[in-house]
């Protein structure tokens, strides 16, 4: 099922303008000049979504399925958001705050770039200082300084992962203790990562890491705590295995975004706007000329916005 939030009014449509997201109720497309002037991100909740406009400091909160829309002003440059229950929290980067819409503004460190939610607790990573701040009950409850200038920040339960393109490393942080637990090299210039399985009682989390310099997606076994390792009777670190296992480039110009949902493994090259499907043994082009936020991965496959319409190709798998 798909649901388009807005309709095209004109015959001409800029190629880079729409934002596509997958929600529990289907796929949504935010188009310029409708919910907000310049949609830059969509935040998905259980029964609400929010379209952010980082340029014009606006957000539109849309109830699903009624479509009832509430528009609100935000602090400067809302680049990301998260729902905690029905509350929308927005990360306003240039105001250096996390803003609960209709409520508190929580000051965070310089250049906050990522906002993640885990079990009702928010975590903000700020690039300039390398700080992770934990936010609960509208205040910063704890913080840890890791290393600055990460390009991705992901959380899996109580473990956070920070990815560093410059020094080609992943740092892991135990969020219970708010302490760095590991630093592992991966690839040449890793830029983006996604969880690719594992994380059971006997297996560590597997991370897929997009490395445009190596033109590969690396498949990396995530860290585990010492307690977990001892419980399993062995210690394992990151494996850093490139997919395919050969020296051949996996992607012609490299990919710098990776999105994984179930069996759907999707990679994207921002430089050429090329969308790929990939497995452990091969990759294939799905579409070209796609905007960085013009696609979404659903349980059934990938959908993307191209030439003025939403396309849902038949799953090649």
């Amino acid at each position, binding site marked *: 099922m798909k649901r388009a939030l807005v309709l095209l009014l004109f*015959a001409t449509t800029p190629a880079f*303008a729409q934002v596509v997201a997958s929600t529990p109720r289907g796929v949504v497309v935010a188009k310029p000049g409708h919910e907000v002037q*310049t949609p*830059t991100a969509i935040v998905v909740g259980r029964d609400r979504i929010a379209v952010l406009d980082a340029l014009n400091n606006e957000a539109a909160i849309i109830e699903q399925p009624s479509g009832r829309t509430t528009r609100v002003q935000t602090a400067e440059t809302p680049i990301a958001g998260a729902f905690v229950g029905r509350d929308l929290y927005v990360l306003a980067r240039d105001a250096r705050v996390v803003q609960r819409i209709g409520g508190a503004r929580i000051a965070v460190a*310089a250049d906050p770039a990522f906002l993640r939610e885990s079990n009702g607790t928010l975590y903000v990573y700020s690039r300039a200082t390398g700080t992770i701040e934990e936010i609960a009950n509208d205040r910063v409850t704890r913080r840890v300084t890791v290393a600055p*200038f990460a390009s991705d920040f992901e959380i899996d339960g109580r473990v956070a992962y920070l990815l560093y393109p410059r020094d080609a490393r992943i740092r892991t942080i135990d969020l219970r203790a708010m302490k760095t637990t590991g630093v592992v090299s991966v690839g040449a*210039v890793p830029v983006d990562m996604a969880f690719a399985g594992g994380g059971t009682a006997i297996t560590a989390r597997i991370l897929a890491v997009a490395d445009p*310099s190596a033109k590969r997606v690396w498949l990396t076994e995530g860290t585990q705590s010492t307690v977990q390792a001892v419980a399993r009777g062995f210690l394992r670190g990151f494996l850093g295995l490139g997919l395919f296992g050969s020296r051949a480039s996996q992607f012609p110009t490299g990919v710098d975004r990776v999105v994984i949902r179930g069996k759907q493994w999707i990679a994207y090259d921002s430089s050429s706007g090329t969308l790929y499907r990939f497995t452990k043994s091969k990759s294939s082009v799905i579409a070209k000329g796609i905007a*960085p936020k013009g696609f979404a991965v659903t349980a059934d496959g990938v959908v993307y916005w191209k030439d003025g319409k939403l396309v849902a190709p038949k799953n090649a798998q």
Partner: protein
Amino acid sequence: MRRALLFGRRTSRPPRRLGADGTSALILLLLAFPLGAQERLASDFEIAQMEQQLLRAKGFSAQVSARLNLGDLRATRNEQSLARAEYLNASGLAEAERLDARRESAMSRYANATSYAALAQAKLGRKARAFELLEEAARYASDDAENWNLYASAMRILGHPRKAAAAARNAVALAKEPLDVAIYQHALATALIESGEVDEAERLLVTVTESLRSSKFASLQRDVARGEAFEVYSTARGDVAAYVSLLNRAQLRLAALYEQRGQTSKARTQYERVLAARSDDVTALTALGRWAEAFEANPFSPALVATYRRVIPSISEGPPAGNTTGAQMRRALIQLARGEHRAARTTLDGLLEKFPANETLRTLRRETERKAAPTLPGATPTAEELRALIETFEQLTPEQRVTLDRTTFTSDVVFTSAQVANGQTTFESGTIGGVPFRFSEPTVFNGVFDVRARLTYRILGRTADVSSASSGRAGRPPSFDRDALLLDPAGVQ
């Protein structure tokens, strides 16, 4: 209206590793300046000089900065279509560099090219794409001061000074070399002024100007003196050019700030310091009321002309004698102000014989023939209405421009050509009742259409009619013989 000017400099900073890079030691740093009182109009000489630089430019950084610079220079002369062409060229260069860098796994190059692609998009007014590219560059290079400075410049161009200030703060925090720090502090001060935070801006500008004049920059000061460097570039290359341009801009900005606050003595000091380095600086000459020198320095500056026309009523002496270009310009402006249109025409015709392509002269000449106040066309405009609009476009009031921006028109048009592919038709230019028009870029319409169609559009402005272009040599812009309407298409039937 505000715009960003650029200047870059050569740095001895070693390239940082980000992939298999081979990063050039040439790092471009950006500065942003407001248009208006501080603007220097680009003279024909400067344009020609920059075109020569472009012909000599080798490598991405040199070429893209030259293109952006030329676009900025054109923009100061209100040559919007030529400016746009340069920005499009810069955008094309940057996009090609992005792809090339990715193919070669050169991620620093990729981030840098992405920032420049964003800047070009910002100058073209494409907000969403510019923002997208800036964010992309930040993913790769959030630790790079130059990229944050580019971010700040693009945000200023797009009219978001608070975002620009935030980005500039990042650049200042990351900069290490004294000249870099000064450049980024100046950019931050600029954004703060536009955000209304003038106290912090003033402190920063005082810091920048005092720092640049201090012994910390003794070596550069000696180089400036030895090389008799005085040119102020919107895109400067090399430390000396960057130093000269930064000092000029920072002092002018600080002077303007003092003026706004009624601190005329302090402002005068800054203007005199500017003239000590460059005796023909139009902004400083204008601010100090030295009109004759200002017009001799840059006779066709729209900013200078506009400022002079405002003060003409307070000037007691008659039209200046003399046959220098500056004197003739002042004479024509005074004649116009007095309603002596025939005399003004004679003066301007004399100048137009020497400078036939000068937009300022042509605009003033049209003004001498103006018989009625400009009016806006109806919803389905006649050819006469559109011709009148082209003629009087510069005289539209701000209110009329706002109304024009909001109005959608519909006309029967004949497109120059129709390129059909995949069920879509691409149009770029055509005529409405014989009145030429064009779009800012080739536009794809869903559906197959004939060259004769009904077009719904908004009118963006007046531009050159590309169909009247005489071909330019390599690296040189073409010349245009007549004006056209620049339209923003909304739909075609």
